[in-house]
């Protein structure tokens, strides 16, 4: 069995393949003990090889080495998403990946290789962390926040790119008596605007595959569709794409 593990800031995903097919998947929150979470994810699995990706990729290598586990190779999320998307949608030319702490736009060549990529700087603007932060302010769970924002009928303009200042702006709008749903919609729209700029910089070519945890948010998906003028392809398990790509990498090595 060959595994791919994607250690993100919010969750850790595992995809195992055997004889060219996915045979097992699992997912756990990262928590403040990612090492323990990695261990429990792979416990008891007959793994021959592991490929790790995500910001905790080297931690996987360290942890499994300590446990005398299978050999671990590491690849970046950019390569992992390119490989995963290529497998799920061979015709894809652009990948949008919005995760917990990073947003990435990747353009692919016709044969699925990375041509160009863009990644957010050291700031959480436009990432899952941003949504999590503002959902907290609204006292709505992150899972429900997208559906809540879709109840808005007018996306209010949020100018700030900074997560904390965007919250200040939202608070000001609330004080002006605006509908909170419209403020939530505006916050989602600010993420999508930033994302579109990033996609533009890598040279947006259709079809676009939208992956990463934030692709589970129906409001972001809806606003991305409107901005693109057509629907992006959203995989069934958008947050598993990185782990799938890593497993695929391990399978061909």
């Amino acid at each position, binding site marked *: 069995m060959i595994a791919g593990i994607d250690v993100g800031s919010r969750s850790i995903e595992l995809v195992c393949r055997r004889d060219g097919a996915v045979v097992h998947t699992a997912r756990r929150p990262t928590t403040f003990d990612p090492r323990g979470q990695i261990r429990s994810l792979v416990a008891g699995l007959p793994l021959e090889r592991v490929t790790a990706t995500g910001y905790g990729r080297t931690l996987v290598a360290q942890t499994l080495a300590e446990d005398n586990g299978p050999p671990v190779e590491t690849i*970046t999320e950019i390569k992992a998403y390119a490989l995963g998307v290529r497998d799920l949608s061979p015709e894809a030319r652009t990948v949008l990946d919005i995760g917990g702490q*990073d947003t990435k736009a990747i353009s692919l060549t016709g044969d699925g290789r*990375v041509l160009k990529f863009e990644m957010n700087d*050291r700031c959480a603007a436009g990432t899952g962390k941003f949504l999590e932060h503002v959902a907290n302010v609204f006292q709505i769970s992150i899972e429900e926040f997208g559906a809540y924002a879709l109840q808005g009928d007018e996306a209010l303009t949020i100018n700030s790119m900074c997560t904390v200042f965007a919250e200040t702006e939202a608070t000001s709008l609330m004080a002006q008596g605006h509908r909170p749903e419209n403020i939530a919609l505006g916050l989602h729209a600010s993420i999508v605007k930033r994302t579109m700029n990033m996609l533009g910089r890598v040279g947006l070519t259709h079809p676009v595959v939208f992956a990463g945890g934030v692709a589970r948010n129906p409001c972001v998906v809806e606003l991305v569709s409107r901005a693109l003028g057509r629907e992006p392809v959203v995989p069934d398990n958008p947050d598993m794409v990185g782990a799938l790509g890593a497993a695929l990498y391990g399978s061909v090595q």
Partner: protein
Amino acid sequence: MSQSYHEMWEKLNLDLPAHDGLLQVLGKFYGDIYMSQQGRLQGMEYLDFVLSEVHGLRIKELQDAKAQGRKVIGSFCVFVPEEISLAADAVHVGLCSGADAGKEEAEKLVPRNTCALIKSFIGFKMAKLCPFTESCDLIVGETTCDGKKKAYEAFGELVPMLVMEVPQQKRACDRELWKAEVLRYMVEVEKLTGKTITAEKLKAAIKTVNDRRRVLQRLNRLREADPAPISGRDALLINQVGFYDDPVRFTASISTLCDQIEERIKAGQGVAPKGTPRLLLSGCPMAVPNWKLPYVIESSGAVIVGEESCIGTRNTRDLVDESGETLEEMIETIVDRYLKIDCACFTPNTERMDNVAAIARELKADGVVQYTLMFCQPYGHEAIKLGNRLEKESIPSLAIETDYSMEDVEQLKTRVEAFVEMLK
């Protein structure tokens, strides 16, 4: 570094506890980034020694020179003509500006949105951490960007300061301006040192500085070899030390090192296996101990084969024509040589685009990593232009904007590793 320098540092009015702390951090950083490398050249021990003594023995040498009546001139930029300083028997050194030291202090004098390099040289002074700055009889600034230009106004209140006006275009009238500035510098240096610059002395100084450029050119040519015979980190260190060390001693040591590198190339040995992705580092200068990005790159399965930077080819590519015999002729050749520098302060600056592409081809680089300090307008603008130009030439490039802090190291690793994956 031994305790024996404490007295000297105290005389220089350094903040001793803070300075000890800085040296400790620097030593650890150096150990992690440099001493951990596999298969280093023997000749690098000289650089390890020079760097370990950069605030010690080298400062002692400066103090000894001062005791003999020589003057110490410090500068931040490759535009300040060192030949003239040397011809007046002054010692010419680069100043501290590669670390996040005294940042909060610096922000009292310059805006927060100022590049790390400027904040650093002001911070080093205000926090009393740089024995070079404290040893200087004159510090020479230059108008290569608005940030520096304005920062020197504040800095000039703290140190004896002279600012040279570097033109921003390269027309005949700009050359006249620059020549006037070089002559003004000569007068100031003569006044400071009490020495007259003669044709004979200037000729010797031109030769000394050219020799250092020649040995660094030789080093750069040797890096065309695959496998790469020397790491980019070590090559950067050599270029950095070139700004601090005695030029004659430095040239001799690097010449010996180049002999070793030649033997390595003959034996087919390198610091990374043949076929390792080769990258050219291009953009803003990297003063000691600014090794973050080179370290990230070389820990990501790539090797740096060249530095298109003021601490790199921009400092060494052009020699001063040595045929001048009279003072007037030599001033002309100095003026011409310095105006060939393709600093991003010039408009237009198309020669830099040509030079980067040419260096990438010569060194058989697989890609270019553009390094821009945050808030550095000139190189920030050129990063976009250069990115487009390299794309046209099918040379992959990655633009990085960062500063001296460590907060973005993980993001940098992801970007650089992904770039290297693209090249494989």
